[in-house]
């Protein structure tokens, strides 16, 4: 009961925070950054389900992000189909690809799984680049239309901000639901010991495949939102380094934590903005921060910050206790 209450409070706080942000922030630049954080959060959420809960690493997740973006771009621009129908196709396409690829790939484990997904990501990226008659090739795909719903036109600024964070909220609720279900418990059992969970009757392969397809769907939704936000996509935005960035977001935020995904996405989106002023030294400082966070907060920022808070709390109450004693 108290668990449910806590989740309810968390969700309410989240909605209030989003509405407050949306109402108080007027500057399009800041709104745009928070919108990017939202898109990255979707990516991190999906990957976090796969990595944090099921314990399966994917180094090619940017492929699904790209599939979502390119599907909607091609359908809505080249064929003039409504973007909302394109969204359904994008998600369906990503899930289908995840099924075909996941079937053999998820039988691998550890670094081999990393290698398998990496290879998949590279192949998809090469397709984006080389199939230039359809995808526009390396120069990119121009002229993606804006999203429209009835009389609302979603453009950079408040309307898009609310759209993205609304989607993030729904995604968080769905993730929570999955985790609280039988499936969620089975997932965690895979993370802790695949053989043991197999022994108690969990069909681990199907389960891994399902969660892989789910995270692919989230990735493709993020790609859809990205494509209609920037209105231009190119293969560079979905390359290997983006996959690595996604893994970094999950790990640095804190694995197996929904809020960790938001934290990780925020850090990796905001850091480059803040570091702009360092110019040439940006890379050095970015690398250093990544290393330092991982060395001193191996469980990620969520756990690390809680630790620091609890520690300072404890030491404060501890010192109080000492004062009492001396009195």
């Amino acid at each position, binding site marked *: 009961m108290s668990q449910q209450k806590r989740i309810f409070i968390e969700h309410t706080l989240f909605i209030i925070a989003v509405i407050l942000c949306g109402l108080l922030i007027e500057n399009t630049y800041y709104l745009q*950054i928070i919108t990017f954080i939202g898109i990255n959060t979707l990516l991190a959420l999906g990957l976090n389900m796969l990595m944090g809960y099921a314990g399966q690493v994917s180094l090619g997740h940017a492929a699904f992000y790209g599939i979502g973006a390119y599907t909607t771009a091609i359908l809505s621009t080249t064929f003039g189909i409504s973007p909302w129908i394109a969204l359904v196709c994008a998600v369906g396409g990503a899930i289908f690809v995840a099924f075909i690829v996941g079937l053999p790939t998820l039988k691998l484990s550890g670094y081999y799984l990393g290698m398998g997904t990496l290879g998949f990501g590279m192949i998809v990226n090469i397709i984006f680049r080389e199939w230039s008659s359809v995808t526009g090739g390396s120069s990119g795909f121009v002229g993606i239309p804006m999203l429209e719903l009835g009389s609302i036109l979603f453009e950079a600024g408040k309307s898009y901000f609310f759209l993205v964070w609304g989607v993030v909220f729904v995604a968080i609720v769905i993730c929570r639901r999955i985790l609280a279900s039988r499936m969620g418990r089975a997932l965690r059992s895979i993370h802790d010991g695949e053989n043991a969970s197999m022994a108690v009757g969990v069909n681990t392969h199907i389960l891994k495949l399902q969660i892989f397809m789910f995270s692919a769907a989230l990735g493709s939704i993020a790609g859809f939102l990205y494509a209609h936000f*920037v209105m*231009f996509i190119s293969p*560079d935005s979905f390359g290997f380094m983006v996959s690595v960035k996604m893994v970094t977001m999950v790990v640095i935020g804190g694995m197996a934590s929904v809020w960790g995904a938001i934290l990780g996405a925020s850090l990796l989106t905001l850091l480059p*903005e803040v570091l*702009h002023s360092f110019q040439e030294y940006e890379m050095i400082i970015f690398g250093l921060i990544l290393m330092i966070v991982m060395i*001193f907060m191996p469980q990620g920022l969520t756990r690390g910050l809680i630790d620091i808070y609890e520690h300072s709390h404890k030491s404060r109450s501890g010192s109080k206790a000492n004062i009492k004693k001396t009195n």
Partner: protein
Amino acid sequence: MNQRKINVFVWAIAVMLVIAPIIGTSSAMAASAYKIGGIFDSTGPASFLGDPEKKTMEMMVEQINASGGIDGQKVEAIIYDSEGDPAKAVSAVNKLLHKDNVLAIIGPSTTPTTLAIVNFVEKAKVPLISCAAGIEITSPVKPWVFKTAQSDLLAVAAIYKTMQARNIKKIGIITVANAFGESGKKQLVGQAKDFGITVVQQESFGPNDTDTTAQLTKIKSASPDAIVCWGTNPGPAVVAKNIKQLKINIPLYQSHGVASPKFIELAGEAAEGITLPTGKILVTKLLDASDAQKKILEKYEADYKAKFNANVSGFGGYSYDAMVMLANAIKGSGGDKEKIRAALESTKKYMGITGEFNFSATDHNGLTPDAFVMVEIKGGTWKLLDK
């Protein structure tokens, strides 16, 4: 455990100490000035473009301010690095448009990063002068978007004209697998017919490939009269070296993407005999004294060398021309963006580093094919080819 926590705080404080003053100084800038934004790929794979462009812009702003600014107002440049990443370019353009409130923007350096931000400047109605080559940027014409770099269209035309004169009929092409190479390939294949040339073999290589002998072997077996390589350093230097190693005796043509002394240094002996199109900046010394561009080229070369102690490349010229034309357009506009745009569009007969610009409502690039000259590499230096 306690020690760990202390460590964490020490690191955190150290990071804060480094970041805080820099953020502080960057926000405490002069209040009243014409603000001009710059977005360049000063790091990342296109840094050979972005770096000189950024430096040139900084130098130009300094010069303008030293001579009293524009209409008595100082100019302030706010420059961001897009690292060749379209998402970063979008972020930078929003910062310039909505946080820094700039009058106009120069850059970005590459076609994808430019295309990514075009929608945003169009909507915000802020003039943009791109330094990228892609023809898609200004065709179809968008009211607020201009560009100073020569289109690949002109470079290919210049190469094909030379080939026609040398009676070359069949060519094999090898292009780099990025936006620059792809745009070049499109033009090479598209224009071939107009010059009576057939492309017998098309190959590509990755920007960081260590070896291209497989592709070259395949081109060799198609026995073309010439090979055209379209890419930016270091790939084309590898291609040139591989051609020598494989003992392929077919003349090699390169693109303007390698038109810098760096290419000769990288390719070494293998650079001998290569023909390529370039802006006039590379061959300033070889130009006739009567050439209208010679004076301005010499001044830019000397200024750049004095300030950065580095050789100029044609790429910095893109932002030079953008900056001069923009400064001229701002003059008398009182900071009104619509007036600046109109003034830019009516720029006529501006003689710049890249060539003579004549903008109009239907042409936002404004260059003609004579913006390129053909050069051959002989004895480790450039030799001007006769027209």
